[in-house]
């Protein structure tokens, strides 16, 4: 398991930032986010605490044979639960990937709160916990199940496919740790890389606060992408 942290400041008041949070997609920075849906939304009895559950849909580009194998399509999904609390003046978002969750899980917590001395500013804090689960044997079992189902009685063909997949898999699996390390270095370096090119609220907040899950979806996919 690996942990990451990032903090930022925005030159906009907290309430504006929280309103923008509901309408930040689509935008020109995060073009991989193709859809956002609200699955559940509840207001507490005092009318000051709003909890929402959203489904974020991202485009994904993994080889077809691999997506068949791990049971995902060309879309990947992230579930997010957020709480806007007017009493504590916080917006807290917790998200986790639904796609490939048995292989790799990214739990992300993001919090927006007013700046302690300047009410026209908002502080942003991001934390992520990345855990890789799969072992070579669990993946092999999945491939076996898949290949049995797929090829049925056509045993020799199935066997052949299985062998080549295994071969590719073992070669690339060794690189997985390296890729996860690469990913962690990248996330840690992000803060320095951010350049504010515009004072547009959406664009600025998006550049600084893009979900780690979606921002690094390519790297995460690469860790399981044996085809290229």
């Amino acid at each position, binding site marked *: 398991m690996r942990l990451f942290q990032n903090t930022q400041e925005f030159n906009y008041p907290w309430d504006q930032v929280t*309103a923008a949070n509901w309408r930040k997609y689509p935008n020109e920075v995060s073009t991989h986010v*193709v859809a956002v849906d*609200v699955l559940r*939304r509840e207001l507490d009895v005092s*009318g000051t605490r709003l909890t929402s559950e959203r489904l974020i849909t991202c485009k994904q580009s993994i080889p077809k044979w691999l997506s068949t194998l791990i049971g995902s399509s060309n879309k990947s*999904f992230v579930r*997010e639960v957020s709480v806007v609390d007017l009493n504590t003046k916080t917006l807290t978002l917790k998200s*986790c990937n639904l796609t490939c*969750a048995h292989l790799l899980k990214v739990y992300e917590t993001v919090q927006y709160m007013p700046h302690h001395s300047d009410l026209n500013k908002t502080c942003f804090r991001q934390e992520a916990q990345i855990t890789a689960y799969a072992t070579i044997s669990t993946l092999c079992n999945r491939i076996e199940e898949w290949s049995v189902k797929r090829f049925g009685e056509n045993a020799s063909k199935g066997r052949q496919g299985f062998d080549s997949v295994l071969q590719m898999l073992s070669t690339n699996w060794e690189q997985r740790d390296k890729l996860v390390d690469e990913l962690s270095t990248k996330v840690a370096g992000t803060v320095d890389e951010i350049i504010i090119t515009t004072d547009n609220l959406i664009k600025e907040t998006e550049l600084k606060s893009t979900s780690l899950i979606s921002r690094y979806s390519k790297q995460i996919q690469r860790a399981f992408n044996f085809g290229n």
Partner: protein
Amino acid sequence: MGNVMSASFAPECTELKHEYDNCFNQWYSEKFLKGLSMENECSKQWYAYTTCVEAALVKQGIKPALDEARKEAPFESGGEPSDSK
């Protein structure tokens, strides 16, 4: 931002989603943030939209993964994983 709104993962629900989003965004800024609301409004739009989404989640096979995630990090606890170490 303007009038551009995100689509639904299910194209057949996008229009219903936009109707709900329009209502919600207005409610959020004009009422909720000002502490003027005691109820979650837009229930008519919400009902139409969520009925569409529920069916699509099942149809597209997303429901099992979603249920698993809900068990692990309940809505009621603000999405905090229940077994967080």
